[in-house]
């Protein structure tokens, strides 16, 4: 009896304290301050700051989608799982000298690559000048002698690069429009053009979503162009990263060795490279009977929700 009397107020205060803590953590999460907002010809752009986390948000009205986030007090750390996942391409090409990134966003992928490989020549192609301005002003993105942004449609950029005989060791496709990847950047013909600007030992890393019916079309198309690819998914992310190269894919043992070699360098960016080799799968988990997306047939954004 005595004990009960003593413990009750303690339990009460613990409950109260937990409630308060929960309340404040919720309040802190919901109180996000919009520090910049603008409408470009392609989309609405918003920069939202929440504590130390600053995010670039596109498509503000329908299902806010964070394009890139950065921790302003720890700028090197990559906030999103899919951004970290895109560095799995280094398991196939550990020392890229020429890099192409299609789609700037907040610029975290090109900036990290520039940090990792200061000598590498990095081309970034972004369709929207407003995104470039926002990345520079709010996301610490800076062009330098080795990293240049071109404001252009990625398809046009790749076609021109192919004409000039340009080759890249590392290509990241991360171009997203309002809803998804623009249709003309999903077709067999486009991937064929990308193939022509890949160096012999170059790697292609494409960020996609792992959503329903469209996933099948996309997978079938990549398979059609590259025969095989690593399908990289993590339970923590709705993204699926496609990683492929011109020659046949390396065995897992080699990936593990490379992960061990590079893991330390990637630690400060929060990329758990050692966990990745086990997750790179070549297993077909899509419906092979789906139609390949071509310039003639690419209703990608209509298929997505079906």
């Amino acid at each position, binding site marked *: 009896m005595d004990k009960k009397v003593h413990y009750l107020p303690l339990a009460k205060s613990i409950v109260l304290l937990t409630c308060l803590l929960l309340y404040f953590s919720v309040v802190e999460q919901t109180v996000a301050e919009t520090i910049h907002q603008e409408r470009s010809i392609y989309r609405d752009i918003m920069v939202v700051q929440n504590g130390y986390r600053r995010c670039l948000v596109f498509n503000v009205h329908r299902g806010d989608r964070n394009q890139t986030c950065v921790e302003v007090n720890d700028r090197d750390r990559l906030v999103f799982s899919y951004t970290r996942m895109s560095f799995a391409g280094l398991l196939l090409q550990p020392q890229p000298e020429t890099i192409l990134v299609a789609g700037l966003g907040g610029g975290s992928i090109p900036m990290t690559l520039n940090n990792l490989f200061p000598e590498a020549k990095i081309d970034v192609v972004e369709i929207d000048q407003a995104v470039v301005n926002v990345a520079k002003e709010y996301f610490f993105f800076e062009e330098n002698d080795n990293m240049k942004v071109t404001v*252009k*449609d990625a398809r046009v950029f790749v076609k021109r690069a192919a004409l000039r005989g340009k080759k890249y060791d590392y290509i990241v496709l991360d171009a997203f429009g309002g809803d998804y990847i623009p249709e003309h950047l999903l077709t067999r013909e486009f991937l064929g053009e990308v193939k022509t600007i890949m160096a012999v030992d170059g790697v292609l890393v494409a960020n996609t979503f792992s959503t329903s019916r469209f996933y099948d079309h996309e997978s079938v198309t990549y398979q059609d162009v590259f025969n095989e690819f690593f399908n990289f998914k993590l339970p923590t992310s709705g993204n699926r990263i496609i990683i492929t190269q011109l020659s046949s894919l390396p065995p897992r043992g080699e990936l593990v060795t490379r992960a061990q070699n590079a893991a330390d360098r990637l630690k400060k960016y929060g990329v758990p490279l050692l966990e990745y080799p086990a997750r790179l799968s070549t297993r077909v988990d899509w419906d092979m009977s789906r139609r390949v997306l071509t310039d003639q*047939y690419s209703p990608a954004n209509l298929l997505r929700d079906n």
Partner: protein
Amino acid sequence: MNQTKTQLIPGAVVIAVAFVSGFCIMTIEMLGARIMAPYFGGSQYVWGSIITIFMLALALGYLLGGRLSMRNPNPVTYAMFFIAAAVFSLPIILFADVIMQPIFLTIDDPRYGSLFASIAMYFVPTCILGMISPYSVRLLVKSHEHSGHMAGKLYFVSTIGSAAGTLGTSFYFVLYFDVNQILWGSIAALISTGCFILLFNYFLSNAASRSQAQNYG
């Protein structure tokens, strides 16, 4: 004498075929951006180029069609607009790459690239399709008092056709067919419409001459 000739094709037929032309114009226009994206990208200016060229071509078509309607308006010329528009749309399917490749190579700026590509591919067929509207008005109008009413009716139907073509293409056709299949469909529709007018005209003029012969007999 012109009077009897223009009467050879009933108003309902003119209205119906105007729907087809409106439908096909927008089907072809909606596919324009898709066709040009591989060379000039999916940027806003590609749509700008397409719409500009369609508007200019239609404007010129209206002018020329109106002119032509002053000289002996007849169903055969009318049918020829549909068939010619179909024939001049063929390069969009058969030579799209041949047309766009050199433009892409010579013009670096995709705005002007897409503008010239639009001119090369769309100007002529759209201009011919534009001739159909004023010519239709001429075939429909039998008196001054009715001219405004007929023109209104015609633009109503052909614009509804355009709306249907836009919606059908962008919502549904692209989901089930290749771009070229949809274009072939439009070409087939235009040619069939032209042939339909010719046949209609043929049977009606036969019937007319027979009744005329009977009258004289």
